[in-house]
């Protein structure tokens, strides 16, 4: 039922997990002998179809696109976080040789504002700029340098305004936007406000601004169509939403705008910034030429949404035995200038503010507010990650106050199936939180250097660094995290898929975007499983297909995977019905494997090709999980379809004089429902842990007075192979979630949610310092004598 495997010593990036296929499979089918045909179907480590092309560097990404006679676009972005635009003069730029078009707010034919949930963001700033990097104008020219120079030649006269950069000031500041500064407020009330515990601990926590930092920056190509429409080729992760938004701004009917999804170079949230796609489309429509834009890393940092910087104030009440009595919390999310998905992030933060613990009384106030800081939005684990760092800090504080072992304190409080969330929702899915925590706690600790002196010891500070063994202290810490699957609060989660069989080849048509999460591999495995065909292709995605929605929190595994399975089953029935009728048996008594159809008694044996008899079979199906409801005015409601849990034990070494931290090992146990592709599941967990380690130690996009400082990969330190710890996946609990297709749960987001809290907990254990800020600054990990 569960798989344990030795991944120890594996310093993992996502790609490294492929090496684990032969050494540490989680389920047995992958153990098929080497001479057997390549295994297929669910539960095996089927490699991604595009893996070879990606590793060879020949896989085309959006930035590689080309069209005959294309023009290059450049976007003029605001250098100020808050200013009034007095005038925009484009005459100089338009006169430059090679410049074909200059567009500003005055050239937007349709809606002048857009937004994923609330249309509050202008295509181009017209009167006010509200964040550093906000688009003001765009240029198309015959050379990228000409476009950039022309954009720089647009004369904008600003009247500087005081930026609101402290979210606490947003409540009293002048409204930054006609919609006001408060995007959402959730006052969650659960239980008795008068309840008190014998022990009370308080804490203030600050979480920094993580950037999704996709490996490839934003890029796209817009091609005008003869019918007056436009096609946008870009690495969108939610093509239909992007299409509708673009069509509204272009003043076109949605069917005249087509978004074609190209190779996605990494996606940690909503990929592709409408601030780039919209100018591209406008310029293509204006010039009648294909227009391309490939953002620089600096533009990418300035434009796309980041993780919400968050300020959290907590008060935990417990009895003398360490049982939680009440949690009081205030959570303030800095949404940046525009709403984007901040309302959803706040719902997650408030709902999971107490973590996977049984809390009889909870009072949580959450606010998402507007500031002139860089925009915040959907980044893997948003909301849940920030509160996890805080409530786990509180659990450590409580354990210290009570003189208890931190793991034991957590075990006394963990939730299980049947318990209530503070939103009043009953946890109906498997919630093996205690089992996860015990698994990581009982895993043997990595060797201490003094026990293994022959091994080269990588000290904090790195090889040839300043680290000194005598100043290094080791710490062990725990994190328990949770996140919901799919959209929440009544979002209509639906996906449509088509399966087609011709000869012995199946094709899947589904608008779920492969972002590197492995959806196309999963779709192939599902069809292999249902139809017994080995050769399955997944068609490229565009908006001519029915919508599948965005990719987030294993949404596509659930709704799109579910739709693919249903469509494949319908094809199976169409294929077997005539045979079954002919032999007078039900279709359930027939099996398809390796392209052959056999009956249970072996009387009938034919091939899929013969059964098809030259026909083509098509079936289209939808998957729509059971509906959810919005949180009410006291934060109560059945808002989530399902939950996924994770336990992480972090082992860190801290040089307590310099404050440098090295994460030695992360041991992970995760509630996955069912492992559909072991190699892929491990890769997702390793990637999530690595992103979490980045958020814990180095990743923070700094600003001063609203200006982004050093928007480049030197100033913004992503984890390298040396910063990445050994990631040991000690247990994958496969307790199937009966309402989810295949019983599978979300895998990618929950390690991101949990690992920063675990690292902070370990640094706390090593240094005795409070460590209440992420990323952990070296000065917070220094232990001064006396």
């Amino acid at each position: 039922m569960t798989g344990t495997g030795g991944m120890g010593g594996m310093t993992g990036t996502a790609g490294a997990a492929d090496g684990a296929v032969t050494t540490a499979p989680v389920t047995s089918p992958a153990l098929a002998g080497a001479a057997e045909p390549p295994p297929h179907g669910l539960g095996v480590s089927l490699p991604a179809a595009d893996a070879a092309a990606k590793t060879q560097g020949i896989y085309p990404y959006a930035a590689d696109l080309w069209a005959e006679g294309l023009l290059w676009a450049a976007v003029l972005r605001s250098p100020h976080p808050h200013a009034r635009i007095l005038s925009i003069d484009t005459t100089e730029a338009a006169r430059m040789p090679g410049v074909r078009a200059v567009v500003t707010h005055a050239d937007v034919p349709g809606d002048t504002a857009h937004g994923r949930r609330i249309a509050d963001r202008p295509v181009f700033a017209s009167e006010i700029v509200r964040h550093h990097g906000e688009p003001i104008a765009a240029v198309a020219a015959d050379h990228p340098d000409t476009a950039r120079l022309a954009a720089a030649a647009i004369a904008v006269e600003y009247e500087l305004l005081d930026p609101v950069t402290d979210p606490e000031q947003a409540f009293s500041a002048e409204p930054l936007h006609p919609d006001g500064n408060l995007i959402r407020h959730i006052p969650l009330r659960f239980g008795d406000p008068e309840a008190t515990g014998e022990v009370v601990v308080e804490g203030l926590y600050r979480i920094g601004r993580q950037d999704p930092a996709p490996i490839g920056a934003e890029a796209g190509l817009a091609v005008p169509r003869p019918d007056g429409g436009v096609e946008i080729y870009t690495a969108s992760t939610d093509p239909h939403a992007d299409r509708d938004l673009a069509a509204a701004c272009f003043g076109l009917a949605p069917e005249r705008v087509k978004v074609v999804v190209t190779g996605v170079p990494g996606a940690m949230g909503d990929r592709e910034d409408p601030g780039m796609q919209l100018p591209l489309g406008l310029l293509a429509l204006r010039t009648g030429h294909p227009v391309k834009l490939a953002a620089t890393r600096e533009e990418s940092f300035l434009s796309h949404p980041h993780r919400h910087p968050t300020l959290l104030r907590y008060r935990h009440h417990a009895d003398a035995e360490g049982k939680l009595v009440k949690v009081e919390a205030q959570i303030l999310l800095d949404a940046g200038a525009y709403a984007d998905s901040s309302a959803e992030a706040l719902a997650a933060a408030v709902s999971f503010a107490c973590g996977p613990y049984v809390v009889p009384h909870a009072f949580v106030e959450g606010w998402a507010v507007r500031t002139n800081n860089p925009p915040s939005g959907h980044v893997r684990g948003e909301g849940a990650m920030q509160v996890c760092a805080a409530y786990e800090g509180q659990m450590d504080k409580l354990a210290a106050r009570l003189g208890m072992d931190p793991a034991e304190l957590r075990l006394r409080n963990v939730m299980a199936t049947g318990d209530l969330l503070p939103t009043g929702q009953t946890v109906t899915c498997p919630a093996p939180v205690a089992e996860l925590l015990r698994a990581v706690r009982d895993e043997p600790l990595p060797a201490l250097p003094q026990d293994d002196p022959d091994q080269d010891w990588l000290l904090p500070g790195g090889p040839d660094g300043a680290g000194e063994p005598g100043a290094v202290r080791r710490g062990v810490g725990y994190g328990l995290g949770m996140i919901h699957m799919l959209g929440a609060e009544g979002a209509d989660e639906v996906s449509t898929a088509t399966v087609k069989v011709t000869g012995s080849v199946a094709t899947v048509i589904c608008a779920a975007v492969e972002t590197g999460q492995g959806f196309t591999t999963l779709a192939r495995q599902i069809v292999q499983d249902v139809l017994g065909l080995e050769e399955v292709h997944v068609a490229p995605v565009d908006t001519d297909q029915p919508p599948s929605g965005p990719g987030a929190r294993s949404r596509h595994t659930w709704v799109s995977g579910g739709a693919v399975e249903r469509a494949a089953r319908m094809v199976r029935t169409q294929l077997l019905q005539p045979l079954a009728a002919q032999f007078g048996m039900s279709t359930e008594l027939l099996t398809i494997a390796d392209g052959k159809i056999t009956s249970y008694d072996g009387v009938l044996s034919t091939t899929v090709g013969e059964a098809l008899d030259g026909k083509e079979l098509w079936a289209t199906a939808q998957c729509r999980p059971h509906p959810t409801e919005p949180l009410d005015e006291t934060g109560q409601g059945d808002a989530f379809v399902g939950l996924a849990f994770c336990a992480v034990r972090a082992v860190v070494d801290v040089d307590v004089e310099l404050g440098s931290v090295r994460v030695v090992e992360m041991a992970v146990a995760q509630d996955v429902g069912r492992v559909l592709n072991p190699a892929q599941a491990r890769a997702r967990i390793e990637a999530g842990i690595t992103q979490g380690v980045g958020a814990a130690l180095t990743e923070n996009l700094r600003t001063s007075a609203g200006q982004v400082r050093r928007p480049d990969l030197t100033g913004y330190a992503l984890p390298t192979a040396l910063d990445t710890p050994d990631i040991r996946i000690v247990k994958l609990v496969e307790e199937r979630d009966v309402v989810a297709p295949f019983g599978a749960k979300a895998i990618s987001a929950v390690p991101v949610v949990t690992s920063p809290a675990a690292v902070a907990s370990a640094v706390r254990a090593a240094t005795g310092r409070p460590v209440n800020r992420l990323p952990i600054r070296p000065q917070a990990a220094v232990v001064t004598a006396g």
Partner: protein
Amino acid sequence: MTLPGSLDEAVAALSAMPAAVPVAGGTDLMAAVNSGLLRPAALVGLGRINEIRGWQYQDGHALLGAGLTHARMGRPDFAALIPALAAAARTAGPPQIRNAGTLGGNIASAAPTGDALPVLAALEATLIIAGPGGGRREIPVGHLLTGFDMLRPGELIGYVRVPLLHAPQTFLKATGRTGPGRAVASVAVVLDPARRNVRCAVGAVAPMPLRPLDAEGWVASLIDWDGERTLAPEACAAFGDYVAAACIPDPAPAPLDGGEPGTLPPAALHLRRTVATLARRALGRALA
């Protein structure tokens, strides 16, 4: 783009095209080009000048070619000659950068975080500058880094002359992470037994490396140069504090007519503590 084969050809090419920019490893230059900060009219590539890619010996000194890469300087044979420069080269970024970046480039870029710079300052290295018409002139490295003496049009850094001290040297750098990163602070300590002195330079905390001369003189006077050359840990710690206080001085005391005395902000205090730790460890390791 021209690719001269000798130093004099390179100087001639630069003199012929005053707008041209010399490029060696390109690790700083190309980043500036890619981010649009620099659009050189022409480039003079220094990669084919074999005479500056190695080193030679010259009466107790090593004459290091400006084209030596960090990867080459990091190797054991070089480390046996100038250990601190080798240590700095090994920490100067990821392997791709070390394979391309050069000693001369590190000096010419003169970034505050340049890893070789505090080592060269502690070694009191001399730069040999090639000029038009086969001319050569020598300037101390500090003169270039402080802007006291600048490169003139058409000139190139040809060689770096450093003394061979045959004594321990250390270079330590704090980056705040385990993977390769830019220095938050770095410290080079070299022992010069012949002249009975200790030389120390601190990098990354100021626009150019800083030399805490008082601390150097004080600690050199404590060392028994004819004996074991060891120091009590307390003395190393005091040296660290001395160096740190010299590089990150206390704000001005309260004026006589009253008013608040200045205090260092927490970030500066942490930097001072970091420098003190690095200097203590660097001296301790040099004397171990």
